[in-house]
């Protein structure tokens, strides 16, 4: 009879083990580990074009250099590199057209903040590659230097229409156009164009030209030019266009130097 009891117990044990195993298997399914994998976030990094700490103004990159303090004056050196395209391959560039890589935007106004919280201003011109600041006291330490003003070239493409008459005058943004002389010949008409320029020279570039390509620019002098019409059928008026540009002042705030190393 014990054998029978053993067999019965054995059978029950097997069943219980199976039930437990099944139960644990169910628990295993419940305990499924779900891994949520999402696409990596895309972060547009402001990766520098040339070096960390650079500042971009228009199509020009300002590359800050060394900061030196000497006898109460702080000097920050910098370089400028252009990102703008150009229409011309280098072998076709005249002396006037700017080659690719030349900076067109210019830093102009800078602000230095001392660790003590005082602010002083420095200014730079077109050929500057360093800016200097007179510190409030010789012992001051520099906290930050910020570019707060710069110039951006704007080609206006403005024009003035003048009659082909000696003394005809018209106003452009950056000066006065005058037909100083008109020489009418049997085979051509020659007009001498003077330009009386106004404003600071470095803030603009003036390049006059006739809108009508049949007027040939047969010579240039100063800001003016000589125009020639080949033939005896010169029109009564000429559209004079300025193909140059004006450096427009832009204000902003771009951190260029941070004593904290940012």
């Amino acid at each position, binding site marked *: 009879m*014990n054998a029978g*009891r*053993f067999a019965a*117990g054995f059978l*029950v*044990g*097997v069943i*219980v*083990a*199976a039930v*437990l*195993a099944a139960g*644990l*298997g169910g*628990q*295993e399914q419940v*305990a499924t*580990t*779900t*891994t*949520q*994998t999402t696409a*990596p*976030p*895309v*972060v547009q*990094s*402001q*990766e520098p074009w040339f070096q960390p700490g650079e500042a*971009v103004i*228009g*199509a020009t990159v300002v590359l800050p250099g060394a900061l030196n303090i000497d006898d109460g004056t702080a000097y920050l050196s910098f370089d400028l590199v*252009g*990102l*703008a*395209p*150009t*229409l*011309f391959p*280098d072998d*076709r560039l005249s002396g*006037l*057209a*700017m080659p*690719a890589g*030349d900076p*067109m935007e210019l830093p102009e106004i800078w602000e230095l903040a001392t660790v003590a919280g005082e602010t002083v201003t420095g200014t730079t011109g077109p050929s500057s590659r360093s800016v200097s600041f007179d510190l409030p006291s010789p012992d001051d330490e520099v906290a930050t230097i910020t570019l707060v003003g710069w110039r*951006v070239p*704007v*080609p*206006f*493409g403005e024009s003035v229409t003048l009659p082909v008459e000696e003394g005809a005058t018209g106003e452009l943004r950056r000066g006065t156009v005058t037909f100083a002389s008109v020489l009418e010949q049997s085979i051509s008409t020659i007009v001498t164009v003077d330009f009386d320029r106004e404003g600071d020279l470095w803030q603009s*570039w003036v*390049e006059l030209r006739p809108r009508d390509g049949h007027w040939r*620019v047969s010579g240039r002098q100063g800001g003016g030019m000589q125009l020639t019409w080949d033939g005896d059928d010169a029109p009564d008026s000429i559209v004079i266009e300025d*193909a*140059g540009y004006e450096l*427009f002042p*832009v*204000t902003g705030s771009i951190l260029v130097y941070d004593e904290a190393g940012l």
Partner: protein
Amino acid sequence: MSEIDYEELIRSPLDDFDRGPSSPWVAMLGGLIAGLIVGYLVVVLIGGDEATPTTVASSVETTTSTVPAEMVALDYPAGYLEFAPDLAARPEVIYVEDNTVIVAFTSVASRGSDPAAVSWPHGGSWLLQTASGVTLRSSRVVFGAYSPGSFSVRFPAANLGPAEFGTIRMLERWDAERYAGSASTPFAGEPFELTDPLSIPVNQDVTLLVPRLQLGRFSGSAEWQISGAQMGAAVDMTAVLVDDADEEVGIFAAPAQILDPGNEGILDFNWQRSFPNDQEGATTVDLEYTVDVIDVTATDVMFSLDDVPVER
């Protein structure tokens, strides 16, 4: 038939062994334990690893993997929008004059591209929209011949008043398909004047006509006309003097300039060789040309003017 005592036959000697009063339950308990062991082993061996519980939990466990961010370097500085291949622009300032609104842009070549190899479009069509809903269509695009990357879009706008500006959109871009080649004519010394017009097929539709070519000691000019181009073309030419051995004697070329597309024009030449500066030995003029035939590409690039300064 004798009656067999089966109980006696299956009787074991151990049946007489005294296991005490609980021995029947011990047998059952032993069977139960053995069954548990065997059952467990069978499940493990047959079920394999899947049946091996490693974690017991009452709820779904979720783990989120940490995926590193993909850092993508911008192709252009902040604020610039691409409006032509490898070329992006940003509005910098708005000028409001009596009868004109001018939106000035700077542009940059894309990261890694050659700024001298990026092609500027020859123009385009733009819309300027004020905050109050007034829409202006551009009259002209002015490129900075002496300020690379800068251009201005001009809008005729009489009596606009103190408008605030919302957006500027580029609807068309005037691209160019470039064709280059040369045509030759005899040269018998300066002053040179073309006797018969040169008619040069540029492609199956477009013809370049040179009705007049003058070459002097240090300067010259060439008149050109284009036919068959829907929106005209920008034409550049150089006059190369060569001798009988096809060796170059010198070149007349126009200064580098932004060439306005049109159907006719004149190029003024200057002699490009400083030494020797004469044209002795030249017997042929090779008129080398590039013709950029203008084609319209539809675009829709919109720039916000919210933070662009306005000069009045």
